[in-house]
């Protein structure tokens, strides 16, 4: 009998403790202010009421980044950098997962995130995961998806973007065409996919525009990351007479610098890799895309669209990087011609052709 009482008490105590633990934190009781309004005077004159829409503080969006590769990969690194910046500016709350890979995890990760974190907006790269992204987006129409993609947008909630930096690539081609003494240029690319082809083709077009006699060698290393092979490919080009190189991949700038030759970087400003020899770089900047997306999602006006323009020069999504003082070594008229063409592109008066077919090289 006594035993049972003890048991009952123990159970009761435990239940009490458990309930206490579960209880919600005490919410501050809002003070009700009773305003005594005394009408002392009747307003007789008509008052013009000016309604100024004072926007409340922008709602901080929850944004998730979904990357197939580690964020050291330059392409994903650009998206990650822009989202970090938006977070630092206090506009979004940003979380991300990287190195998701290409073997089926993208769909699982996106589903879990949509169900548990309920983000307002998800950015990422859909290359190699195109179907997975669209399958998940279909099931979560309230979430905005904006993905780097080689395909088009999908209604109602998948917008796409890509690194449309063919315009600075064209300008670099002009510089390279004007700088070469041997009339031979070299481009080392990863593999002939549209993202690489259009940069290479624009570079070739720019070089030809500046110097019709120029020959451009193109080779592929069939890997996104093999700087040692890229360097060997570059040395092979230099041995074959190339004296200005476009480093679509890492490893090429090292080869050019070793031989004292000019080179051009890709994706971000790569001058610091060889300050005396990297003339400029084709820079991709995702800030305009991210700003636009934040505004659209906040305003509830997000639509499935191709955000291409926001990654081009006109809107600041692409640029020719600073010359970092190397212009002192360049012919003044060449720099002037490039600057003039840059201004024409910025003002919309010159369109760089987009060609995504495999560059054959021009030799």
């Amino acid at each position: 009998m006594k035993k049972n009482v003890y048991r009952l008490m123990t159970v009761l105590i435990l239940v009490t403790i458990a309930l206490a633990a579960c209880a919600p934190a005490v919410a501050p009781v809002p003070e009700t202010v009773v305003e005594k309004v005394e009408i002392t005077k009747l307003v007789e004159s008509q008052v013009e009421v000016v309604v100024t829409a004072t926007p409340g503080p922008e709602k901080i969006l929850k944004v998730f980044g979904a990357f197939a590769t580690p964020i050291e990969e330059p392409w994903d690194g650009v998206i990650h950098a822009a989202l970090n910046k938006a977070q630092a500016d206090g506009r979004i709350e940003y979380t991300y997962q990287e190195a998701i890979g290409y073997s089926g995890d993208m769909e699982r990760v996106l589903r879990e995130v949509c169900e548990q974190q309920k983000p307002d907006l998800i950015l990422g790269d859909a290359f190699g995961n195109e179907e997975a992204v669209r399958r998940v987006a279909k099931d979560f129409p309230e979430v905005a998806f904006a993905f780097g993609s080689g395909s088009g947008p999908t209604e109602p909630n998948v917008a796409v973007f890509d690194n449309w930096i063919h315009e600075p690539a064209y300008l670099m081609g002009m510089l390279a065409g004007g700088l070469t003494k041997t009339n031979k240029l070299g481009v080392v690319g990863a593999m002939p996919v549209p993202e690489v082809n259009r940069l290479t083709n624009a570079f070739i077009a720019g070089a030809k525009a500046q110097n019709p006699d120029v020959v451009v060698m193109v080779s592929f290393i069939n890997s996104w990351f093999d700087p040692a092979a890229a360097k060997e490919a570059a040395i092979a080009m230099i041995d074959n007479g190339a004296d200005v190189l476009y480093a679509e991949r890492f490893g090429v700038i090292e080869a050019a610098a070793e031989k004292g030759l000019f080179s051009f970087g890709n994706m971000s400003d790569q001058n610091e890799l060889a300050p005396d020899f990297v003339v400029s770089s084709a820079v991709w900047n995702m800030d305009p895309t991210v700003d636009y997306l934040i505004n659209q999602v906040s305003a509830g006006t997000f639509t499935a669209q191709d955000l291409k323009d926001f990654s081009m020069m006109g809107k600041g999504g692409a640029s020719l990087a600073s010359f970092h003082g190397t212009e002192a070594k360049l012919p003044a008229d060449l720099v002037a011609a490039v600057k003039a063409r840059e201004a024409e592109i910025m003002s919309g008066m010159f369109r760089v052709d987009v060609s995504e077919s495999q560059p054959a090289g021009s030799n």
Partner: protein
Amino acid sequence: MELTLFLVGLIAATLRVATPLIFGTLGELFSERSGVLNLGIEGIMFLGAFTGFAVAAKTGSLWIGLLGAIVAGGLAGMLMALLSVRLGVNQHVSGLGITLLATGISLYSFRVIFGESKIPPSIEPFPMLPILPELHVLAPITNQYLLTYIGIAMIAVVWWVIGKTRFGLQIRAVGENPEAADAAGLNVYAIRTRALVIGGALMAVGGAFLTLAQLGSFTFGIIAGRGWVCIALIIFANWQSVNVLFGALIFGGVQALQLRLQTLGFKLPYELFLSLPYVVTIIALTLAGRNASAPSALLKAYRRE
């Protein structure tokens, strides 16, 4: 003259491409001759590339960086020994596990030390040795990195150690017949552990060559399958150290050749050139592999009854 320049450039490139393969394959040779297939090679080369770079960047000394890579590779070899020799875990599983672990640790440490930078951090790498004056026609061939010369010399050293020394005899004994070696009073576990530690250190030097000599920077994916190529080369070499040189030179040579053919603008699909080194490796393996004689106890964990 044109042809001379082409050949000189080709041979020079061949030696550069072959260097990490020579170190990696010699490392695998030590492991396999003692009876342990070390599939951790891809990860250990990556760990060597990272550790060498990180230590060199932080201490300012390439040599201390190289030493760091050797120590890291040795430790990874020791871990492989703990798993596959002491605990008797399946060699495929433990090797692949080491590759995943070493890759993960390297990437994680890279971010902790260097942060998230858009441009890979870089150091001033080992120079090429000025053996001939720069304008000499043969200079590209002779003026290689010191590590390339060390790698070629290492082939002779490994040949001597495995074939002519007491330690080499012990390695071969535990790789061919561990029961008999044990009966003869050898400590199979200890000898295999030593072989794996030395092997790991050599693999790590192969990786460190890329960051400390060839590139001066570290990026993820830098090994790009070179470790797996070494696994094929060891079969091609029939587990003989001298053959390692030929295997590495053939693969390196075809790789260097295909990059040159691409720039010469032959109107052939570039995929054809890219596949050349692997096609040649497969053909060579088929020819050489018919008489291949792997160490008898390879893949068998030794358990004392």
